[in-house]
């Protein structure tokens, strides 16, 4: 039985995607490009995967606190 997960510190990790994707000056540029994709675009695709990974990690970490 898990105590409210909202109080777990690990949930703060879930803020990372917001920081990474809403601060535009961070990634609104063309270089460095990857496989023909400008930075602006492959950065976003990368975050899809990173964000899912972070969520997965938080899930694991907060499950273990049982």
């Amino acid at each position, binding site marked *: *039985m*898990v*105590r*409210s*997960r*909202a109080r777990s510190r690990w*949930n703060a990790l*879930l*803020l990372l*995607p*917001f920081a990474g*994707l*809403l*601060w*535009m*000056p961070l990634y*609104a*540029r*063309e270089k460095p*490009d990857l*496989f*023909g*994709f*400008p930075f*602006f*675009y492959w950065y*976003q*695709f990368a*975050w*899809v*995967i990173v*964000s*899912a990974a*972070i*969520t*997965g990690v*938080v*899930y694991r970490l907060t*499950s273990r606190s049982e």
Partner: protein
Amino acid sequence: MLAVFLSCIALVAAVGFISRRWWRSDVGALEAWGLAGRQFGAVITWFLIGGDFYTAYTLIAVPALVFGVGASGFFALVYTILVYPFVFLVMPRLWTVAQSHGYITLADFVSGCYDNRWLALAIALSGIAATVPYIALQLAGMQVAMEALGPIFGTHASGWPLVAAFALLAAYDFSSGLRAPASIAVVKDVMIYTLVIAAAVWIPMRLGGYGHIFAAAAHSLAARPVPGYLILPPTQYLSFATLALGSALAAFLYPHMATSVLSARSARTIQRNAIVLPAYTLLLGLVALLGYMAIAAGLHPANANDVVPLLIVRMFGPHFAGFCLAAIVIGGLVPAAIMAIAAASLFARNVYHASPRQEARVAKWASMLIKLGALAFVLSGRITYIINFQLLGGIWVLQTLPAIVFGLYRRWLDAPALLAGWTIGTGMGTFMAITRGSVYPLHIGGLNLTAYAAMDALVVNLAVAAVCQMFLRPLARIQGGGEQPRQTPSSQVKLVVDDSH
């Protein structure tokens, strides 16, 4: 092409009708019709929630936007990334509270939390008003796809294919409720994944690779009368970020999204889905790229909305094109069905206040009327008009955020304050969207604060609510103690994570 298209539709229709037999449950009629008895496991929930997001409208509108303006259109990708951490954190809690109290709709939840009829009504009306144009847009997206099949299908004059699709939608919706779109969601998503992956691999091969596509797009966008941009310019930073954040926060406040969440078997199911649903987001990214592919392919459709069907017909052989167009049409049927169910449930429970015995029946009829309304919208042919309503809907839905999120966590704001905030927020957002559009150019003291009106409205909403709350406390004391502060339902219910799943 037509033959393949029709057989796909027929298959899907059959699945929809057979689904009556699945997920049988003994629960009260509306819970069975509207939430399939809360029985959906992780896999079906994944398809259902994914199905909500990746709709005919998404497949048509996002590439159209990217085709039209470039980088700005990718706010859709960013927003679908940000949605899931938010869902992971907030939705399981909502599920648990809803399940323990038997809530079927978000307005039920608000009603239970705050015990205020007006606030619950506000939430219900916001949801319904936001959903109807969204359904209309699905139908419009379906029509665009069907028109690409050729002259038989469709000039504006003959809306009959759309009416046929509508009839199909109505029929299985009536009999099976949420089970129908859930079962079809699986088929639909398989089809859409196939379409998008094929496009993402095959089309660049024909056009000379992604590097070339981006270069061609940049070139073409810059040469437009109103230039588009491949890389987001600083003037659009704030609008992009607020569009993404606002859409992410609003996404699960839409009735149909809430329905998909609440129909899950457990809170844990939702969490696990939040981890894996981003697969759909990757797909959305590829869908957005279709807009650039269309530019690189030298397409010049009369209307930007025709970009995807045109690309499909030009780039794929007739059989696969028929399959793809069917995928888009089915991609409209599923969310339209879910949206209608969700809006109808809201109406039956929270606006009409039907008795438990009548609920399911009222909801079914409401669902029919809502779909008819949406159909009328589309057949009137004014698609720009519909899109404007949908953008407005997003603004309305976001104003329900304070009531729901604070209801789940800390009760800092009471119903009257929330209502005041909601009223001002909704009014202001509506005014902004009607006068200058949903991205509102705001200039304060030399600063360019052009942003998504929904976020502007939300900020004002919260501010107004906070101010009202400050006045409420002393007033309550003057009235001799005022009401007992209500306990958050969530504090009464420990967050139970079901380990058996």
